[in-house]
């Protein structure tokens, strides 16, 4: 068995998403020795989960915020009962416990004197009409109360999927509404893999860059172009990338693509041999920054990128026309936008662009369902927009040989027609030897087979329509005969 990777366990100092009983997710930086408060669900000690494998749920079970691995009970089938809601009236007094009683229970729970399940049971017992509820309603009641009083939490490992889910729920506009299904389709279309070289314009706060970097696993290069003072790749920090992966992400400001004529290298500005102390430090700082920009420029100008991915607030075609020359042939070009309408003009622009092949505008539809034995159905509320993708393939346009002149073409067609005629005559002669009645049918079949064979040979570009044409023609011919 291979040894565990550092990424397979929860490490101190990393970002962790904590899923709470309410299904809300909290994002924390796990500091060794600290206590993490989950509000009404209690507090746990970071050290209790640091060093353990991801994937388990934990229960806070006593007053010292002790935790233990929580094993959920299996979800059981709801047994159908004769109950129905005929007897149920909307009556706040059904719950015999008062608000103060419940508050007291809650504080006991927080102190660790009562477990979440015990509280839920107490609520259930003091509910006057609980037994009259339908089995489905009872299950729903327990589930609802459980979300309030259980003290189980699950640390979730940040991955492109979980990070996207977290931000899509919490603040979709931050990541420009890109939803996990659209993002995953973008990854597929981009054909991102270990070792490739990508050109990216990412205004989704680095959501796309993060997902791409994850799929490259520390091999290859991502060059991100940005405007403004800094690239805003905030999402990257949530991904717990190792240095190797972080090093694959390079950035370059649009304004620095071309070195201004008056820009001087640090060596031109100062003579390094004359510098001491703070001046020398400054020189090295400048040199480092200069080298980073130079390196990014070099990467850009070398071109041959394996994909161009644009998710910008600016007009996409204005970006594409600048960056397309740097993309290698037969590579995907992808534009993401939160609204489909913003991509319509780009789509027509792409269709006119000789360097792009087969633009395709897609939207994704995603629906989640509740899956409980005997209670499976789509969830009552679903996601609206998830963004739109416009994909095409970069091609190398080159002038193709001019078509034949009309005379040449007619001559060639005549020659072909004669050859066909000869062939058919030969076959008819062959089929005439069989009984006369099925002659027409046989001829028709022969024709179809004949045409079909030619169709295969030809590998036609309009397979469906021509096939249809062939068939009807041969039937007509059969009728004439």
């Amino acid at each position: 068995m291979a040894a565990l990777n550092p990424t397979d366990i929860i490490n101190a100092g990393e970002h962790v998403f904590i899923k709470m009983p309410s299904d809300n997710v909290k994002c924390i930086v796990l500091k060794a020795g600290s206590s993490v408060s989950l509000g009404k669900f209690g507090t746990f000690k970071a050290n209790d989960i640091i060093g353990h494998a991801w994937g388990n749920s934990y229960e806070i079970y006593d007053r010292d915020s002790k935790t233990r691995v929580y094993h959920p009970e299996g979800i059981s089938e709801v047994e159908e009962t004769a109950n129905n809601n005929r007897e149920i009236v909307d009556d706040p007094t059904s719950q015999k416990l008062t608000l103060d009683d419940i508050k007291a229970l809650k504080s006991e729970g927080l102190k660790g004197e009562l477990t979440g399940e015990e509280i839920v049971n107490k609520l259930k017992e003091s509910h006057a009409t609980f037994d009259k509820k339908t089995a489905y309603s009872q299950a729903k009641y327990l589930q609802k109360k459980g979300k309030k009083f259980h003290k189980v939490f699950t640390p979730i490992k940040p991955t492109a999927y979980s990070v996207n889910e977290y931000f899509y729920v919490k603040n979709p506009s931050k990541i420009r509404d890109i939803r996990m299904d659209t993002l995953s389709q973008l990854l597929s279309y981009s054909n991102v893999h270990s070792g490739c070289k990508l050109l990216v314009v990412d205004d989704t706060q680095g959501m796309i860059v993060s997902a791409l970097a994850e799929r490259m696993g520390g091999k290859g290069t991502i060059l991100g172009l940005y405007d403004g003072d800094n690239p805003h790749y905030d999402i990257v920090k949530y991904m717990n990338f190792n240095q190797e992966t972080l090093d694959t992400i390079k950035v370059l400001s649009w304004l620095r693509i071309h070195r201004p004529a008056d820009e001087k290298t640090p060596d031109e500005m100062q003579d390094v041999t004359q510098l001491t102390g703070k001046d020398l430090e400054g020189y090295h700082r400048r040199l480092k920054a200069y080298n980073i920009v130079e390196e990014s420029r070099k990467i850009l100008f070398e071109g041959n990128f394996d994909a161009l991915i644009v998710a910008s607030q600016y007009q996409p075609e204005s970006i594409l026309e600048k960056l397309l020359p740097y993309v290698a042939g037969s590579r995907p070009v992808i534009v993401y936008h939160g609204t489909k309408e913003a991509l319509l003009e780009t789509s027509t622009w792409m269709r006119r662009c000789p360097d792009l092949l087969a633009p395709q505008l897609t939207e994704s539809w995603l629906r989640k369902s509740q899956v409980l034995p005997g209670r499976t159905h789509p969830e009552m509320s679903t996601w609206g927009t998830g963004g739109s993708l416009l994909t095409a393939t970069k091609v190398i346009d080159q002038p193709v040989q001019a078509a034949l002149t009309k005379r040449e073409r007619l001559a060639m067609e005549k020659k072909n027609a004669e050859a066909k005629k000869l062939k058919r005559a030969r076959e008819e002669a062959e089929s005439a030897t069989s009984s006369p009645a099925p002659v027409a049918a046989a001829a028709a079949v022969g024709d179809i087979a004949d045409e079909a064979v030619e169709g295969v040979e030809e590998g036609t570009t309009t397979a469906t329509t021509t096939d249809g044409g062939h068939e009807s023609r041969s039937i007509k011919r059969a009728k004439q005969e």
Partner: protein
Amino acid sequence: MSLATKHTFATYKKNNTIENGDLVVLFLSKENLILIRIQEDQEFCCKFGNYKHADMIGLQYGTKLGSNTGRGFLFLLYPTPELWTLILPHRTQILYIADISLIMSYLDLKPGKVMIESGTGSGSFSHSIARTIAPTGHLYTFEYHQERVAVATKEFEDHGLEGLVTIECRDVCKNGFGLVNKADAVFLDLPAPWEAVASAKQAFRQDKVGKICTFSPCIEQISKTVTALTEQGFVDIQMYECLIRFNEVRILQISTLDEALEMERASEKKRKRAMPRVLRESFKNRLQQEQEQDSGNNTDQDQEDTEGESTVKKTRVNDGDLSQQGSSTPSTVGTPNSRSHADVFIPDDSVEPREYIEPRNATVTRLPVEQRGHTSYLLFATFTPATQQPSLAELNKAAAASSSK
């Protein structure tokens, strides 16, 4: 086959140049893609002419190539798993990009992951998985149909994936996967996935979190699988459906009613069937009278009203000016709050109606009349490490000890 063509589907060629023995996808149209292997002495023929393989050698992938007759051209594309999904010969129902993408993301696939797939089917998903987990990961794929195994094995070899994929002919529902403590992710596309759940559990790496996905078209299958997953202790069971809508972008030409009427007037005039002058004059007079009455009655009418009227008038003046210049600039349409008045129906005599007015272009999208409504339900669940693990250091020490034995 030279080494240069190895792993063709899993990674790009460094020089991106077509060489003898390489795979090339011929793009004839969106619906017509063909995968060929370059052999110097061969040619590809279609109704638009012939394309010599020798002519393709030395070109960059992505190049447009004309046929010998000059009547057609095609594009030489680099083979990718996504293109393969569109080309491959269907031996079974295959997975398409919507499902493939979501599953790969949910299962957290990336370089180095070990994955189990069953059944292999036509190998559509296998190609995408292999590309994503390359170069250090591995895919174990199982298929109980002997012939499909044979074809898929050949395809994986031809496509340079043999080092990344292990295929086995095996009925995993009856005999299990035969793998223990190996996988990071499991994908089940089987008629009865619930029969393979217990074996899948053993196949997972026992010391870390793992993800499973089952793919079933029917809700009854999902129901049985959910029961099996819960019994085996899988958690966080979620179900999704995902579809892609392919929009057709079109340019729609739209004229305003005024433009249409103007053109109609022009053609009427041509046919000398225009409204007799007497009638037109009387219509105009009557309107004028009404207008005077209106303004007499409603002097305190809110300003918007009069403003609206003036815009209408101005509009018409503008329109006239433009048409006199022979410009086809579309006439302005009154703002919604400018109250319509019978005034607008009076044709302007002073201006010759235009016979043709260029309509405006509106870019719109259209969905195909028929589109995919359902593929399958995607059921996801999480495998949790069986117990709390000792520290990483201890584990690594144990692993080192066991390997030294």
